[in-house]
């Protein structure tokens, strides 16, 4: 389902436990926005630093654990522990995320939210196509929205 900024905020607020997966394409200021988003969501949100993002996150003072996207997906399928009910993706290559979302859609029970510049049909909730500037702005508004 395509969601706008308000829709994404609602999805994030409604989740009981969520994990934000930070993809390898994120750079400085957008990474800060994602951190702000996680902080705004409080204790129910965790950050998984995939790709090479653990290092810049640590430099920003965020002790996000290094995660391998494939392992997160595998855990969602096989692990019996306390799992997130929402996975949020931001900053991924589209060809990576398409595969990830397809697995989760068909074989996992959690919901997914793609906060990317492109629409992902296999996500339960996805932003639509937009320019880089509009995306940056949308993420900022979402980060602010969850605080309010």
């Amino acid at each position, binding site marked *: 389902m395509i969601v706008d900024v308000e829709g994404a905020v609602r999805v994030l607020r409604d989740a009981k436990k969520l994990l934000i997966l930070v993809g390898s394409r994120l750079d400085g200021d957008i990474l800060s926005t994602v951190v702000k988003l996680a902080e705004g969501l409080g204790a129910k949100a965790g950050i998984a630093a995939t790709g090479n993002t653990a290092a810049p996150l*640590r430099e920003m003072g965020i002790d996000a654990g*290094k995660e391998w996207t*494939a392992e997160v997906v*595998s855990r969602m*399928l096989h692990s019996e522990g306390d799992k997130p009910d929402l996975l949020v993706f931001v900053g991924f290559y589209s060809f990576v995320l398409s595969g990830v979302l397809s*697995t989760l859609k068909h074989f996992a029970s959690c919901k997914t939210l793609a906060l990317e510049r492109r629409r992902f049909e296999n996500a339960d909730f996805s932003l639509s196509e937009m320019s880089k500037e509009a995306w940056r702005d949308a993420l900022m508004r979402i980060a602010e929205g969850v605080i309010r």
Partner: protein
Amino acid sequence: MTFLLPNSRNDLDTPVATVGKTSVRICDVVRDVRGIESIVKRAIEDPDFGWPERRLQQVECHLHIFPSAKELEDWDGFLLGRYPPVYSPKSSRCNDCMLGVCDLSRERGACGIDLKTKCARDSLLDACKGASQMISHARALLNEALKRFGRDKRISHGKNVRYPSINTMLFTGTPIYTLGDADDALRYAEEQLVELLAAASQESNVIDLESKAFHAGSMYLLAGEVAELVKEACFGLCSAADRELVELPNFPHFIERGIGALDLEKPVVLFVGNSFLVGIAAVDFVRASGLEDEVQICGVGQMGLDLGRYYEKTKNLGGALKVLRVLRAGIPDVIVVGEQCVPANILEEAKKTRTAVVAVSQNMSMGLKDRTDAALSEIANALISGEEAGVLILNPKKAAEVAVKVARELSRGRKKFELPGLEAAEKCDGCGACDDACPNDLEVSAAVLAAKEGRANELSEIYDDCLFCAKCESVCIARIPIVSLVLKAAVDKMRAERFKMRPGRGTPSHLEYRDVAYAFGFGTVSGMVAIIGCGAGNEQDVGYMVNELVDMNFLVLTAGCVAADIASFYNEVEKKHLYEAWAALLQIRGFLNCGSCSAFSHVARAFIKYNHLIARLPLLGNFEEHADYTLGKMPMGVIIWGPASPQLYAAAAGFARLGAPVVLGPHGWKFQRFLLGNVEDRSKWWAYDGFTGRKVEVDPAPPHLIIPVETKEEALTMITRLVFRVNDFRDGRMSKMDSYWSFYERFFNSIPEDFHLYVRADAELPWTRKHKMIRILGEKYGWDVDKRRGLIIRAKHRDGRLLTPEEYARDYGIRVGQYSTFLERLIIREAARRGELADADKKDEEW
């Protein structure tokens, strides 16, 4: 009527194989002995590759000679139980039969299939596609060799190869000594392929389907080996097999890579796809006609590598994927097009620059007229005049001569780099369709808009990462020739591309294996990693990884189109490009290129060879034991980089089944099937103590069998993690831990969260990190440690118990130096296999 059951115990007249004083009835060691009695007997008794007497007494000898996938299900079942397939389906709709279309996302289809099974069938099909391409390649070469030399032609393996055709021996039980042997081996692969394809539309169990996909992978490697043997033994490709060790660091010769290496005033013949026989015929013709200084023989992809092994003046123009880069720039005068790795629109693209096309494969004939029987001059004239844009010629010699003659004519006055100016970008309205279409997620529209404003830099940057698939052009409603614009902006870069590379040399030699066997076996070398693939968007990625791994003292091999990409990487410390910076050796501080994609088989060969060299594992019909040993003991792994092709899918399956884990680069996410272990599930991580038969909880090593990653740094770190083995020696575990930790800290600025799972004793912790590790084990993971002295007092088992080092060694992992296995039949002594420990063993247990 009486039916004779195979291997009936009452079948007393069956032959007996004898080694020393030990005999086995051959009907007891294979599923169905009928028709292969002599092969089985020889497979056991062969003094070089067969069974040492001790081994024959120790384990349950079972050979798999010409096995079907089903016969290897013990091993496949173990692997797929520990590393279950995870699928990312392209679509949940199934249209495979006349009852569909069915949506499998919520319910089964009309035929009863569910989505996982559909995915597994697709997986098998992909593996079969890849295997069929290699088998077809090998068959074409072998048939030509059989025609020329006959079945009895001896295949010389070279004086430095003691173990010929290792991939094949594991499955056929017979070394390849003649072309006839090669024909028998390939026939087996062809039969298996037909069976596997038949199963792909019928089999209904996921594990069975994936086991068959493994089998297709094994057949891929077998066929690759046949292709390589024929190329080397019958068609003169250079090989290290006959060289002295002192020659090897500089073997083979350098060839030049890159458009900058060409004289653009001279004729250029470019070989694309698998056009091997035509390629060497063209070289022979050029040599015989004294045209070596005039006609430039070039290749992309496998032809850039194979021809380079045959002819020192070959110019390698990069990976097959990027052939459009060369074609659009109008570099070749003639392209010779074979099968595999060829864009479907290559004829259309060639027409744009009036490049003549000579198709040479009936599997890629592009609708061209078959002119095989026409006179040579008639064909050449039709191409030169432009009357025909391309022709199909199925006679290699004739095709070669036509290509050279036509190139000489067409090159006169022909201009290269005739590309549109940046004004072609003016029609761009920034709709972004090209961005969405780009399979490499490049920001194309921003670069085109910049060009519209007169700036070419952004387009030039796109050049570095572009796959040159031209999808951006096909979706552009303004019909902007984006690829040509990218090339225009990067003309200077292209002209400057001139690097030295070694085109491949086949197998590592016996001398090299021997030279590092001790270090490799005992683990002072962290591991052996092969980087293979079809070439990446950014060519620097692969070179970077090779450089890092060599620097980390891994043994590094490469094969496939990525081998050409490596050439462009510049080592800042050595102040040289990579092929010049490192010795061409399977040795620490060296790396070697085995050759084109058929040379993936040499990589597998290297893996198997070490098993034999270090553990003396019998080679004939003994695949399972080798795979068991690789997964349990030998630190080997594969990185596959670049867009995923069916051939790589098959290769990945083949390597994974052999026990060598595979890391896929970001484009590997399109593989749609991964084999991921679940580290948290302790029930999956066990091995048999090879002497007592006791099932022991072990460290999760390797944690995955086929796993995709997102970045090259992740690939490097993951591969250092995947070379951990339950049966590591002390030094091996120490050096692997050091590599893993080192990459992890450097790339992610953190420590590996799972390192404690691989700690077995304080003596195995890397000295330079020992105190830090001990401290973290104490503070974070609750181990009882002596921080000051750097000792583990009590280790914390995964079940929560704090155990003394002795107790921990008994209850977690395999004791250093102890034989272990994942297959019950490979436990030593029958009593232990039955779970009946002798008294001495019980005492051993108590210890």
